[in-house]
Every structure is written in structure tokens, then in C-alpha cells.
């Protein structure tokens, strides 16, 4: 068992929020067609509030801090925030589109000892990338920013969100990453907007392409055997009573630019606000967070007896956005189907559901 796994287990036992994603802003210089955020500023935390929050997060035991947005470089106080975060000895990961990163900023990031920078890249083709970001010239700037980071010695990873427009480009993006000495991660799911609007889900790629992505062993790495294995069968009941659906709310959480605390960036169930009470009080005592923590696999409607059992990647946040955090996430049922060709219990139920027509007249 790895030291990282041990640390996670210990954090869970001790109730420590090991990982936090902090979004500094929802403002952005791009207008990506699939983005789940409202880019208007509705009252972001100011510098002093964020520095104070970082002090609280360090005191609570947070080790991994992901600093994201919106576009983090839209904040003029970004380096003041990062310097404070590093003084507090967080392992800091940045998420950015790199459009605003030039050589001097890249060198400052390197000097701060930032663990890694995740750069959003949609295609190797400038037209496709710029068509998704709606910012002409963004591909060129993102590539330049990435090169500056690499030249400064910063560890970089491309985050390649796939959708209809770019689903056939990921191999080339993967090759580009390899050529530039950059890591690569793919995300094949477009998620609903944080306000619940599901309109952007229409951008998701079709089932055949999704299946191809899930069968590409170059993307699965050491997970290939697990991910491509036949369905594992239902989680044994004894195990289901103890198994947690995911780390959201247990050893991880998310804080928005307005101080709202959620179990995860993809789980918009507000559990408190750091402008109203200390972070540690929310983390320890929030009734909503404790509600999330109480969920066990055995509580999941349909999922607890589904054939996909422990190999399912069910996201409780997506389930919440579908209406029930103890219910299924159909998007994950679709992923399980794409991987194995075997429909989940909830997909079967959905396909057999009929709508009775009432004849009026």
C-alpha cells in the first residue's frame, strides 16, 4: 500500500480535509462552449478574505490545494495569494488556460515551488481549440504559455475535455503533450452548469466515440485491466454498508470565489459559507456535509445491487444534479456501458420505463 494511500486513510480516520479546490474567480478570458460557470462577478472574496481562508485551511490540515477558476490570472492578486499559500506549505496545483502566462510569470511560478500546472487544451488544431474557447488566438497563447512553463522547469499537464467538436482529436493532443514533455489527462464528460441547466449536455460525444475512448488502453494506463474487466457484480452487502461513494465531503471539498463550501466542485450542494462561519466549523459540523458523509454504497438506489458494483465510477455530484444524491448518475451508467457493453440496472430501468398518454376529450 502506498504512502499516499496511507495518508488518505489516516486523513479519513481523523476527519482531515486533505484536499481542497479553491476557485479564486469565475471570471474568465475564454467563453468555452461547455463551461458550467456563470462568469459574472457576484462578489468574489477579496485578497484579505482569501489569505485568511488559506490560514484556516492550513490549520485544518489541508495538504493539497488546487487553485482554479474561471481563469486564475484574471485576479491581479494571484501571486500574493500563491506566495501566501506556499508560505503555508500547501502542495499547490494551478488550473489555467495559460493564455496570460509569459516568461516572467512562468519563472515566478517555478520559483514558488508550485507542484504542477494543469492547462486546458482542447485540440492540436488551432481552429477547433479557438472554436471551443471562443477566444481567437487562444490556441497560440496557450501553447506559448505552456512552453514558457516548461522552459522554467514547471511540471505541466494538459487537461483535454472531450465533446462532439474535438472527440476525434485526443490522440493528436496526447502526442503533442508527449512531444512537449507535458502530462496528459482526458475528461470525456460534459457536466451540467452549476445552476442546474442541463443544456450543455447536448455537447457530449455520441456513445460509439465514448466507447472508443474508454477502450483506448493508452488513456487507461495501469487502470486498463480494472476498467475493461467485465462487470464485477453487485458490491457485497457487508462491504456496501461500509463503502463510501467517493472522497467528496470526507477528505475533500470545494470553496467557491464567494466563500460557499461544497463537497466537491462537481457537487453543488451548499454546506456553508466561510464569510458566515469559520471553515473548520463548517467542515466538522455542517448538517448538510454530515448528510453527505452518512451515505454508504448500500444506500444508493439501484446502484447497490447493480452488476457494475465496485467498478462503477458513479459521481455523487452528478447524481445530485440529476435530482438525488442517493440516486444514480445516468452519465456514469452510460460510461459503465461504454466500457463493458453491459447496461447498468438504472439504464435498464430507464429503457423499460413507459409514459402513459392521457387522452383528453
Amino acid at each position: 500500500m502506498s504512502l499516499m494511500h496511507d495518508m488518505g486513510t489516516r486523513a479519513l480516520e481523523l476527519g482531515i480535509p486533505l484536499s481542497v479546490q479553491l476557485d479564486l474567480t469565475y471570471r474568465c478570458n475564454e467563453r468555452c462552449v461547455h463551461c458550467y460557470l456563470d462568469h459574472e462577478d457576484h462578489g468574489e472574496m477579496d485578497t484579505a478574505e482569501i489569505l485568511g481562508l488559506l490560514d484556516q485551511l492550513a490549520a485544518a490540515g489541508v495538504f493539497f490545494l488546487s487553485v482554479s477558476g474561471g481563469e486564475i490570472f484574471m485576479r491581479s492578486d494571484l501571486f500574493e495569494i500563491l506566495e501566501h499559500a506556499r508560505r503555508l506549505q500547501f502542495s499547490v496545483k494551478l488550473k489555467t488556460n495559460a493564455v496570460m502566462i509569459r516568461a516572467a510569470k512562468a519563472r515566478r511560478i517555478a520559483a514558488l515551488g508550485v507542484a504542477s500546472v494543469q492547462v486546458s487544451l482542447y485540440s492540436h488544431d488551432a481552429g477547433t481549440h479557438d472554436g471551443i474557447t471562443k477566444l481567437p488566438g487562444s490556441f497560440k497563447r496557450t501553447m506559448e504559455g505552456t512552453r514558457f512553463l516548461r522552459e522554467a522547469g514547471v511540471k505541466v499537464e494538459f487537461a483535454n475535455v472531450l465533446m462532439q467538436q474535438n472527440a476525434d482529436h485526443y490522440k493528436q493532443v496526447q502526442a503533442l503533450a508527449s512531444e512537449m514533455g507535458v502530462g496528459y489527462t482526458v475528461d470525456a464528460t460534459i457536466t451540467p452548469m452549476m445552476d442546474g441547466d442541463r443544456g450543455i449536455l447536448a455537447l457530449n460525444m455520441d456513445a460509439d466515440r465514448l466507447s472508443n475512448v474508454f477502450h483506448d488502453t493508452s488513456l487507461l494506463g495501469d487502470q486498463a485491466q480494472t476498467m475493461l474487466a467485465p462487470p464485477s457484480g453487485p458490491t457485497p452487502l457487508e462491504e456496501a454498508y461500509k463503502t463510501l461513494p467517493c472522497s467528496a465531503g470526507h477528505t475533500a471539498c470545494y470553496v467557491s470565489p464567494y466563500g460557499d463550501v461544497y463537497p466537491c466542485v462537481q457537487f453543488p450542494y451548499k454546506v456553508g459559507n466561510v464569510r458566515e462561519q469559520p471553515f473548520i466549523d463548517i467542515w466538522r459540523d455542517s448538517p448538510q456535509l454530515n448528510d453527505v458523509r452518512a451515505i454508504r454504497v448500500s444506500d444508493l438506489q439501484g446502484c447497490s445491487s447493480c452488476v457494475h458494483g465496485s467498478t462503477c465510477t458513479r459521481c455523487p455530484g452528478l447524481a445530485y444534479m440529476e435530482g438525488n444524491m442517493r440516486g444514480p448518475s445516468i452519465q456514469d451508467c452510460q460510461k459503465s456501458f461504454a466500457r463493458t457493453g453491459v447496461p447498468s440496472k438504472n439504464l435498464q430501468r430507464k429503457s423499460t420505463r413507459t409514459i402513459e398518454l392521457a387522452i383528453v376529450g
Partner: protein
Amino acid sequence: MSDIMYILRSDNVAARRIGDELMIMSARDSSLYSLNETAAILWQAADGVTLLADIVARDICPHFDIDPDTALRDARELAEDLAACGILQCSPNPFGGTPQGPTP
């Protein structure tokens, strides 16, 4: 290295106490280390300007049933191991600057 040794925590790490262990991650290669109580005492006291011998006498000997010479020899070995991991620096001369504050 001479008998005189100064030790300085590396800036290029993440560190947090999780329960009774101090977890350190090197930003250089993301290697993760778990420091036991003695190593954590050394690492936290490594301000670059206090002699290792003084750290041992002040922070280790009073808390452990160990003779000072053995404690110093073990501490030197430990410091060199931590330096090899890139999470501490060792020098026969004091490091520049003022002592750093305690770690969270």
C-alpha cells in the same frame, strides 16, 4: 562534512502534520515522505543558523533516553538522508538570512 553542521528546511516542499506524522512532499519530483517524531523535530528546527548539535541538545536529548553523542551521530545520519531526498540542506556554515518561523 566536518563535525560542524547546520541544517535548513528546503523551501521547495509541501508539508503538513497528519495525525502524529509529518508528511512532506518534494515539489521537485512529487516524492512523498513521512517523517517520524525525531525526523520531524529535526526538520522543523532546521532554520539554517542553529547548529545541529544545539538542536539535538535542545530538542532531542531532553525528550528521549539517549546519550548526547549517540543522538548527534544519529541526527547527522538522519539529516544526510533527508538532504539526499531534497527536503533538507546540510552545510558546515550557517545559511544566510534570518531563522524561519515554525512550520504549521
